[in-house]
């Protein structure tokens, strides 16, 4: 099985992954949790901009937008 660990910022649109870890401050972690992005949860990337910018993922039954800097702090294991 081919598994790679990358950040949400590098995940391609349409790909899904399981969240391994979220770095960053407690406030950021807490807000991401509220949107269904926490270790163990499954996220699917909906959109990625042309250049580094905000992305949209679907997670926890809804969608969430993350700035590029935050997206880089979320490490996922890509589902093959």
């Amino acid at each position, binding site marked *: 099985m081919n598994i790679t660990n990358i950040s949400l910022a590098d995940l391609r*649109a349409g790909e899904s992954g399981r969240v391994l870890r979220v770095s960053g401050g407690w*406030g*950021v972690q*807490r*807000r*991401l*949790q*509220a*949107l*269904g992005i*926490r270790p163990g949860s499954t996220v699917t990337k*909906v*959109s*990625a*901009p*042309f*250049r*580094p*910018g*905000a992305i*949209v993922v679907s997670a*926890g*039954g*809804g*969608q*969430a*937008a*993350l*700035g*590029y*800097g*935050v997206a880089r702090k979320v490490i996922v294991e890509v589902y093959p």
Partner: protein
Amino acid sequence: MKKILLMGNPNVGKSAVFARLTGARVISSNYPGTTVEFTQGMLTLEGEKALLIDVPGAYDLEAASQVEEVAVGMLDEGDVVINVVDASNLERSLPLTLHLLERNIPVIVALNMWDDALHRGISVDVRKLEAALGVPVVPTVAISGEGIKELASRIAEARVPGQNKRSEQERWSEIGRIVSEVQSLTHRHRTFLETLGDASVKPWTGIPIAALLLVAAFVVVRFIGEGLIGIALEPLFESVWKPLMLRLSAFLGPGSLLHAIVIGKLVDGDIDFVQSFGLLTTGLFVPLGMVLPYILSFYVVLGFLEDFGYLPRLAVLLDTMMHRMGLHGWAIIPSLLGLGCNVPGILATRILETRRERFIAATIISIGVPCTALQAMIWGLLGRHGAGYVIVVYGTLFLVWALLGRVLNIVLKGRSPELIMEIPPYRLPSPRALTQKVWMRLAAFLKEAVPVVLLGVLAVNILYFVGVFDTLARWTAPVMTRVLGLPEEAVVAMAVGFLRKDVAVGMLGALDLTAGQLTVAVTVLAMLFPCIATFVVLWKQLGWADLGKSVVLMLASSLLVGAVLNVLVH
């Protein structure tokens, strides 16, 4: 008196539940954070009056933003909590619910957007959820009123389930357990709205959609606004109101003080609704005949986009641009609201996390975002000289808005926080809710703006009579004439702009300016100083020190831009 708190995540329909329970009219939209200030209303429960408080949305009880702090602070004051939960997204709603259940306060759950959940193939077993949470659960559809009666009648059953404080980990596993137990999903195809929702944030499709919507919004606002003026308001004023006013004018006798105040001056023996400047002529025509139609059309379009759920998607697309201005994508929403009226726009900056962001956002709104009243007058007067001039004004203000944000981002210490935002699903707006929202905003305009317009017209007449304006005009003459290329009397309009910008543009209309001069004048007027209502919220929001900085920026940037435009238009 019993205090009932209405609590829930952002964008789960708390305000709609509030409106249903109290009969009060409140604004709700399809994006998180519509309620930044708490609203309260009365309701009668079993013959007893109770106070219902609509608490701003929060995801849990560990306050992060200014708005969430308000929510947590209010928990100590309440007697009962109605926890509004999104039935279509239990996983996201339950963290707050569990936090509440761990507190020593009676809770009842309103399982809202029940219809939406069913549409999306999500069904929730209410009995099992009641058993799992240990408090009453009532399915509701607040927007249509379904289930609200039952909710009200069962508030008395709310209770404290007496749950122990959980750790973060325990809470998540509990949520997982509850969701798998009470929720069942039926497979279904993706809906058109879901596909459209995703297309709106993907760059290849999202940017063209945004451009199309922007143009469409503009065309529709103009079409409805101009249509109403041409079909209804102008004929009404010209052929019904004017003959009446002419008779009144003859009765009062031109030249009397009362005539000057009520009718104003006659232009070639006739009433000119823009130039006469009497209370019953210009004082009524400007707010009702010129501005009101645009207020209506703007809020119909904005309300549709809000309730549909487009604004958060626009925020995603503009995130990179807004970062250059020290903000993130969210900050576009206060600026868009500011296009209607700066006051709600500046109030909406509370949703931004840091003081620095709030300062930048509020300042660029008050300088670079023209309100609908001002825009309507610009179209009405400057538009006669050709759309090109109006485009110059819009283009200049947009550049100022963007550049000022850029400069403040460079000058002010600190950096902009990152965007973390829920993207709500697209929902077809309910015509009833949309109509009500437009009506509330119109009523607010009629109630708050029209008296100020009348006061402004009255004040102008009296001050002219006293001669204050001549002195002011003499003092500021060098700036007006040399720097801005305007006649020295233009300063009077600028001063009146402090009361109402629409009245001020009306005064410029009476000055016989060239198209170029009018372009300079309305641009400076838009930037120079906010109207008094905006000034007050700006002060409340920023405090004296930052308000002072903001005012210096206004004066400096408006004079600079005015001087440059003056050179360019000649």
